[in-house]
């Protein structure tokens, strides 16, 4: 436990010393949110299950899910696999740092980083586009925690499968971009052809978006979607503990 906390604190300090490593995870979603706000402004959804919901009230919570996904599919795997590539993991392992402490610290750091991202998006969306605040903060928090758990586990899995940090980066970016377009985080879901939605449903971001959006706009916790996100996280955890490599 002491090692977990110390390692987490060191990781937080390392991020603060080199914030550029988070630039993509943060800057890109915020930038796209600004563009979407410029395009859709005060418009409302015109059809589908979210008809008449103000579009920015959809995008703000869904971009919180997107930031969580970018931390898990890009930042975390690149970070872990570059640790492995450079021999940092080897050093940790030889000194008896446990997998639980190492991966636990990554989860805690991801929670913290995602929180900062979520607050940035909430404030920006509220001030610039009059997006609403969450209807049920506690239920949104639950969806946020489950989302971080899911994507952190996916991130560890990607880090374990990628042979190098560069491979982790390309693979993570590819997965993230595909999810960006098929999960309601770019064009609204109802504008997508059904085959795209099917791809979306096969990937975790789609479900994580709905799990965050529903309690945000006052529809309460979407237990089905939350359960899917949790299940993906559980499977990714089990698999990644089997395939995790220190070197």
């Amino acid at each position, binding site marked *: 436990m002491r090692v977990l906390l110390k390692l987490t604190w060191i990781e937080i*300090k390392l991020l603060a010393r080199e914030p550029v490593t988070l630039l993509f995870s943060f800057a890109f979603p915020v930038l796209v949110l600004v563009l979407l706000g410029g395009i859709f402004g005060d418009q409302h959804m015109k059809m589908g299950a979210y008809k008449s919901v103000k579009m920015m009230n959809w995008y703000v919570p869904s971009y919180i899910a997107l930031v969580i996904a970018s931390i898990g599919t890009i930042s975390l795997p690149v970070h872990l696999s570059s640790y492995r590539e450079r021999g940092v993991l080897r*050093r940790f392992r030889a000194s*008896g740092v446990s997998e639980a402490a190492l991966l636990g610290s990554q989860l805690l750091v991801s929670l913290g980083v995602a929180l900062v991202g979520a607050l940035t998006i909430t404030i920006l969306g509220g001030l610039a586009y009059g997006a609403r605040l969450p209807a049920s903060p506690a239920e949104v928090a639950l969806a946020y925690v489950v989302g971080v758990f899911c994507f952190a586990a996916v991130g560890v899995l990607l880090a374990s499968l990628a042979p190098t940090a560069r491979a982790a980066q390309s693979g993570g970016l590819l997965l993230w971009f595909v999810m960006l377009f098929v999960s309601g985080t770019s064009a609204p879901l109802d504008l997508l052809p059904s085959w795209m939605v099917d791809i979306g449903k096969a990937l975790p971001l789609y479900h994580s978006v709905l799990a965050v959006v529903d309690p945000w706009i006052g529809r309460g916790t979407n237990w089905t979607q939350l359960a899917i996100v949790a299940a993906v996280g559980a499977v990714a955890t089990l698999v990644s503990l089997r395939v995790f490599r220190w070197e």
Partner: protein
Amino acid sequence: MPPVIVAEHLQKRYKSFVAVADASFAVEQGEIFGLLGSNGAGKTTSVECLQGLRHADGGVLRVLGLDPLTQARELRRRIGAQLQESALPDHVRVWEALDLFSSITPGGHDWREVMEQWGLTGKRKASFHSLSGGQRQRLFVALALVNSPELVFLDEMTTGLDPAARRVAWDLVRRMRDMGTTVVLVTHFMEEAERLCDRIAVMDAGRIVAEGPPQRLVADHARYVTVVFSTDAEDLAWLAEVPDVDRVMRHGARVEVRGGGAVLAHVAAALVAHGITPPDLRVEQPTLEDVFLALTGHAMEE
């Protein structure tokens, strides 16, 4: 007291490459044990198997009475490791690394003392990427010792250290040994092995080719001494006939006469008899380097 390390018929291959063919050795409590060999001899692979960082393909390993594979967690709390190829995050500071690693095993040394001993106090707030090669090396040794290990593995510890820092490091290793820590020193550096180790295993092509205290290895495997002097004399063919002389080599004025037993006395007498009295006549004792050459048939590659 049982040995701290027992390795019996250790074997390890990477695909078709045999890194360790068959290595057996034991390390006793409280000694500095050297694994000496050139690059690729299998030294690092052997100690990585002993630390449970690699799976041996064959043989029996016991370290502090534990199986390095199935009891790796407990083992790593009780040993220290300075690895040859490893790193820390670029922006982590010296004190943070020591603080973190000391928290893994509660009840170890105060990390501040270790930091002081290894001359890192002035660099406590420096980040890892700003350290010189020698400072990194000292930090890694300090990290290996911060949990007060019973057994410590030092793999090419003095690589990157300047001669003065190297001597300081040797003193600290001796002090560690005197305080009861068993040290396994992996090195390809003859002088280090000869000066520092209580016992040495010479490794070549994945096998242990000799084992023993350095002086005994020299006595057993390098029986020749070399008599060296300078002279302008043209014809020295008669030197080969002098008793105990094995071989005569000449490089310009410098003459080297290799031989056993009383070669110095015989050569000196013969020189005087031929009217040659070189003022620089001296004898060079064999070193571990000669042992290595005799055992492996090749010189140590740097």
